[in-house]
């Protein structure tokens, strides 16, 4: 079995990210399953960046907890990452910039990348392409796949540029071929079908939005959500849609609500700071019953926080943000593939129930690339909002008609006889303000919550389970940790633990039926979250009198399977001693 983790590190602007991306695509085209992880500096130029590519011939669930091949472009990268290189792993370093004190315990290949690039090609910047040539020569990664990709990438810049890059690739290849191979890694080709795509979470999400019929995107640039806007700015006008960059995030969601009111599917995407600004508009969407999709690609907060690092810290805001009793749906995306189908479901829920849907992603998921089967939009049939029937139209048209299911007919401007005012004030069935009518307010609040409670069935349906179905030790995770948890649970089950994981895709409303069965049967339940206080655990404690075991990591980095596995082992030991259900204090 092939399962290899590459990590390339260096100065931002030194080609670390592009090396990682080119390696990713080449390995994917060579038939491997891919799972990437990247961190990059908050600075525009400079600062440390690294790109990790895990490639395997079987399903990958996490970025991996080790490094097989470490490629430091400079001394800082070496110092930062050498501790993660597994024993016996491969170290390929730029011997012009890095001088390892010793290379015991690893197989080291010093390559003078900078001087090869400067002397043989005359362009220092081609150093990263030299590195790619080295990978090809050393690990048998098909040379022609790299060539093909470089031609595609640099074709627009002219033949001279393409040739320089191809030369650099060859220089690296030849250099390493002149050295004896001392490791055993070979990546000549994997079993994967080339029909698959290589997408980041953000790209997958943007494609899913297009598949849902998105017509208008309004947003304000913010890391790590901006690439959704940029992707759509390029693609949406081709199919008759448009992207508008608004003056702030309040305006972004306001524009989305205006467009949705006027009949277009609309969305915005942001990160924590922008989502904080959108909260007032979320309330307007609830009150005026206007469908809207709001994506929050979470980063470390509070305030400006750590913009390029990952966290699951916006759950409270998503669930509770805003004044008054304001039901909204909160979903959490779990994988690159799920970004596509998840956003399609978000549009469906927003349209069907005429309310805002908050979709939580995060930097880890939004920016990582994975091989996914070409998405099939027909798996999630598109649902449109309920518009009035001809007999409902007329002078007495009731936009906010009280119905058993809470959903009312929504007329679209341009429709004769469907006149109404979408109201932010409490209002009657015809949409006229009723700010002093107490009974009406109760009826209307119940109406809005009826829609919310109806979504619980879907929430149960969209909850996934892994490992032992009714385990002694349960793990309930959310969002982008799904693969990592699944991998840890697999490890634990293989070692004989009675462990199972539950992973809801809709967090609000909670999938109570599924959760109840799972939680009641377990001796201990672990809630792993990438935040300091345990926001999801708090949400669960409101409904379940269980001493949940929190596993909180708030470093700005994602979980590794080992993090989760260690906690499972620890809890299993406690359970055997009879003290399994103790609530652990949050730890960093």
């Amino acid at each position, binding site marked *: 079995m092939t399962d290899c983790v590459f990590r390339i590190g260096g100065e931002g602007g030194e080609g670390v990210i592009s090396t990682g991306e080119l390696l990713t695509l080449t390995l994917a085209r060579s038939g491997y399953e891919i799972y990437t992880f990247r961190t990059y500096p908050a600075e525009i130029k400079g600062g440390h960046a690294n790109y990790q590519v895990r490639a395997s011939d079987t399903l990958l669930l996490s970025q991996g907890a080790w490094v097989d091949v470490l490629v430091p472009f400079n001394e800082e990268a070496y110092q930062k990452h050498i501790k993660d290189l597994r024993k016996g792993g491969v170290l390929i370093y730029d011997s012009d910039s890095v001088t390892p004190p010793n290379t015991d315990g690893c197989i080291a290949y010093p390559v003078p990348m900078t001087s090869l690039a400067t002397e043989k090609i005359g362009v220092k910047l081609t150093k990263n392409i030299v590195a790619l040539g080295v990978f090809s020569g050393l690990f048998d990664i098909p040379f022609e796949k790299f060539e093909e990709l470089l031609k595609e990438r640099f074709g627009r810049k002219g033949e001279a540029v393409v040739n320089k890059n191809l030369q650099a690739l060859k220089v690296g290849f030849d250099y390493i071929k002149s050295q004896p191979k001392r490791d055993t890694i070979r990546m000549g080709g994997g079993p994967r079908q080339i029909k698959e795509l290589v997408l980041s979470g953000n790209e997958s999400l943007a494609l899913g939005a297009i*598949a849902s019929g998105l017509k208008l995107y309004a947003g304000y640039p913010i890391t790590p959500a901006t690439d959704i806007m940029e992707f759509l700015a390029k693609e949406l006008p081709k199919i008759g849609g448009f992207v508008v960059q608004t003056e702030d995030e309040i305006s972004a969601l306001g524009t989305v609500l205006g467009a949705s009111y006027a009949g277009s599917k609309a969305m915005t995407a942001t990160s924590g700071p922008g989502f904080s600004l959108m909260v007032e508009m979320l309330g*307007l969407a609830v009150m005026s019953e206007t469908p809207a999709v709001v994506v929050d690609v979470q980063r470390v907060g509070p305030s400006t926080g750590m913009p390029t690092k990952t966290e699951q810290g916006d759950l409270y805001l998503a669930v509770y943000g805003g004044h008054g009793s304001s039901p909204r749906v909160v979903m959490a995306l779990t994988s690159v593939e799920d970004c596509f189908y998840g956003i399609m479901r978000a549009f469906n829920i927003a349209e069907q129930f005429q309310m805002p849907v908050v979709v939580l992603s995060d930097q880890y998921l939004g920016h990582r690339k994975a091989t996914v089967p070409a998405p099939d939009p027909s798996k999630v049939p598109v649902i449109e909002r309920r518009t009035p029937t001809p007999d409902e139209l007329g002078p007495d048209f009731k936009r906010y008609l009280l119905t058993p299911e809470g959903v009312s007919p929504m007329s679209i*401007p341009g429709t004769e006889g469907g006149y109404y005012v979408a109201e932010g004030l409490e209002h009657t069935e015809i949409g*006229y303000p009723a700010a002093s009518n107490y009974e009406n307010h109760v009826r209307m609040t119940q109406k809005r919550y009826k829609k919310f409670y109806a979504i619980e069935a879907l929430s149960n349906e969209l909850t996934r389970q892994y490992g032992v179905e009714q385990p002694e030790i349960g793990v309930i995770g959310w969002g982008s940790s799904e693969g990592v948890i699944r991998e840890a649970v697999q490890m634990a089950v293989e070692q004989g633990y009675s462990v199972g994981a539950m992973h809801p895709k809709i967090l609000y409303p909670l999938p109570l039926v599924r959760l109840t069965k799972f939680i009641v049967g377990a001796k201990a339940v672990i809630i792993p979250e990438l935040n300091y206080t345990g926001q999801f655990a708090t949400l669960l404690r409101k409904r379940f009198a269980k001493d949940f075991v929190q596993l909180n990591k708030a470093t700005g980095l994602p979980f590794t399977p080992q993090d989760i596995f260690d906690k499972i082992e620890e809890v299993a030991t406690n359970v055997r001693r009879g003290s399994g259900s103790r609530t652990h204090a949050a730890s960093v």
Partner: protein
Amino acid sequence: MSAEAVAPELTPQAYKTDEHPIWCPGCGDFGVLSSLYQSLAGLQIPPKDLVVVSGIGCSGRTPGFVRSYGFHVLHGRVLPVALGVKLANPKLTVIGVGGDGDGFAIGGGHIPHAARRNLDIAYLVMDNSTYGLTKGQYSPTAPKGFQAGSTPYGNIEKPLNPLAMLIAYGATFVARGYSGKPKELTELIKKAIDHKGFAFIDIISPCITFYNTYKVIPPRLAEVPADHDASDRAKAFELSLKEDRMYLGVFYQVQEPTFEDGVAEVKSRAQASSRPRLEEIFAEFS
């Protein structure tokens, strides 16, 4: 904006709803509403294609009194919502209404961007220099020395100049009207709706309860001079800075490409290199 050619059957009455305005008797907003009905009838705007977007404040209740589509949004957020409505369906006639607090204070950050985009909407600000709904605090257009609940010792801020501001921001139609001159106001609103691009009218609409200016305003009023060249931005700016009189009429009007024109251009540029099907977009990532 251009009205569709329909049989001239829509009277001002046709735009009235059954709801009676909640405003204080004598409120300037009654005059504005009446002129709005007259303008809509004058232009024969089909109610089904009309959307009135309003903010929060006394004037924010306007959509409820106009038989058409409406969106009563949040305080200060008229323009973002209007942008979305217009982008979703450029055929609609979109009129934004709100007060001076709604537009120039809490919503002030949206005005420059709506103006420079030149979105084809009319934005009517009913300017009474006070926050009537919260009982008369000073607004951004209140004069220095204005005494009220939040400024018991007098307002120490100088008022902003909405016309100068809008001309500077790049609005393509900038005018001032007065609720007490309904005929002239009707003509102005008609021109604003008809104007292709972002049309702004600062409508002086006195608050009879908290800041009654019915006696002080009329003597200061004057028509925009007949020889004023409204296509000259510098001249318009100069006129907007004059404090001797309160000029009524069109200060500035030019024809420039609208935001919608730009959107259409972007779409045609994108479609020139088109791969309009999802599967074809997928191909880029394989």
